[in-house]
């Protein structure tokens, strides 16, 4: 007979299979459809950025952990740093210079995550805080989105991307600005950016959306990217990694506000479908806002949290100074999370019925 365990443990004596590491890894895997679509439309830069960001994230986390004298290997294995890196990589323009990624990811990991105590303690979504810092500090580089590959003048290879990210020029010596000249010789912007500038120039919505950068129901290419993230998000839902409340609330609230606005001023507002399938809407709804640490935890709280994000995205896109308000919306709502949680505590058993 072998030994009897003398270890004192409190009940329960068992648990389910899903671990935190698996949760993080599953989220990374669920990004794959979106990444695939993004790579297809925006080139290999996406993959290069993803690798770069993940490496930076892991390095930054490892340095801070060793400074804090915490177990490095075990903590890195939880996958949270990798996920943060990946999410930032997917948010920034694929051909953004390498130092942009390094600054953004380091800020996210060091300031926003580790200074608050590491995994589980951060109040803000690290990826979005990192992104916002970049957006505010380097507005030009951060809005340098390439047009979708299919309308580009130049074909760029994997090595072109690597070269462009690290030196600023492709192997053939083109700069990113040159690459952005599309087939018809006009500098291409993202659909949301384009819409904003054109509206300011006095065009009506229907005139603007006639441009080739808008597809059937979203921006050209962007609609597929969003669809990819939607599929990935549904997979996460099915796996039980995220709950439906937050994505649903975001999409519903954004759609409702767009619809109202569109039905009142159809000439000045983005059509609701384009709103949903452009920019980072789906990415935010399923992958960013659902970050459990910085999101609300009660059921009512999650619905409120999502609804506020949706409303803020709409507000910033419609009236604000930035074309895509996703990152700001998430950060702003992160601010309110402790308050939301505080006021949406569910009624505990035995406290409802006051006889």
């Amino acid at each position, binding site marked *: 007979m072998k030994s009897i365990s003398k270890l004192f443990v409190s009940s329960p004596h068992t648990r389910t299979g899903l671990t935190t590491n698996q949760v993080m890894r599953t989220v990374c895997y669920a990004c794959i459809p979106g990444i695939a679509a993004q790579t297809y439309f925006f080139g290999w830069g996406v993959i290069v950025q993803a690798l770069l960001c993940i490496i930076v994230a892991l390095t930054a986390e490892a340095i801070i952990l060793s400074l804090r004298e915490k177990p490095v290997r075990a903590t890195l294995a939880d996958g949270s740093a990798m996920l943060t890196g990946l999410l930032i990589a997917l948010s920034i323009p694929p051909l953004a210079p390498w130092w942009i990624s390094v600054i953004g990811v380091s800020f996210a990991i060091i300031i926003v995550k580790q200074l608050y105590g590491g995994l589980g*303690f951060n109040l*803000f979504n690290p990826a979005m805080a990192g992104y916002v810092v970049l957006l505010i500090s380097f507005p030009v580089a951060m809005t340098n989105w390439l047009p979708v590959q299919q309308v580009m003048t130049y074909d760029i290879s994997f090595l072109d991307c690597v070269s462009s990210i690290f030196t600023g020029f492709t192997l053939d010596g083109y700069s990113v600005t040159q690459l952005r000249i599309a087939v018809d010789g006009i500098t291409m912007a993202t659909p949301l950016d384009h819409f904003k500038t054109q509206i300011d120039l006095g065009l009506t919505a229907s005139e603007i959306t006639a441009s080739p950068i808008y597809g059937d129901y979203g921006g050209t290419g962007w609609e597929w990217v969003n669809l990819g993230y939607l599929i990935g998000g549904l997979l996460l839902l099915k796996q039980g990694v995220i709950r439906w409340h937050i994505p649903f609330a975001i999409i519903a609230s954004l759609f409702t506000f767009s619809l109202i606005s569109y039905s009142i001023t159809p000439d000045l507002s983005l059509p609701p479908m384009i709103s949903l399938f452009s920019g980072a809407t789906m990415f935010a709804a399923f992958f960013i806002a659902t970050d459990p640490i910085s999101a609300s935890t009660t059921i009512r709280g999650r619905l409120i949290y999502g609804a506020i994000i949706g409303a803020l995205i709409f507000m910033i896109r419609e009236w604000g100074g930035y074309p895509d308000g996703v990152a700001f919306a998430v950060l702003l709502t992160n*601010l309110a999370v402790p308050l939301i949680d505080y006021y949406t505590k569910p009624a505990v058993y035995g406290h409802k019925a006051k006889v």
Partner: protein
Amino acid sequence: MTEYFLLLVSTVLVNNFVLVKFLGLCPFMGVSSKIETAIGMSMATTFVLTLASMSSYLLNTYILQPLGIEFLRTIAFILVIAVVVQFTEMVVHKTSPKLYRLLGIFLPLITTNCAVLGVALLNVNAEHNFLQSIVYGFGAAVGFSFVLVLFASMRERLAVADVPRPFKGSAIAMITAGLMSLAFMGFAGLVNF
């Protein structure tokens, strides 16, 4: 009407006194460790700010300007503010001793809250009329209260977080305030006022 509404939105969100104009940071850092205290402070400050911007407008328009003694503006405003604060302190002391103690030194310190004098002076600079002054003062106060309460609720969570020792306490609170300010930049351009 729209104009006043936009002025309000602008002062609350876009030109938030704390996070964008960086006024009133002392009570923002000092009275934000508990939600209840923060709410109390918010109410006291709202009261003081609105009243102070109103009375300073009256003082400026009906006493200082007709007499041509605008150079006394700062000293006169401070006088008004001090009186309003003192008055508020007495009221709070009477009505809510608990809040009075929780606010402690910060209640009299509203006097030196630069947001208060800031509102009064900015009102003059922007040549707001009476109603605008009130809305501006009130908006500033609401913006202050809004971020103060949010900040307090976040700090309650921070209190139990595993923050590295050098960053514990005020340091991490400052960083949080910075990140809040970062988030508020999202409102930039929302209302052009």
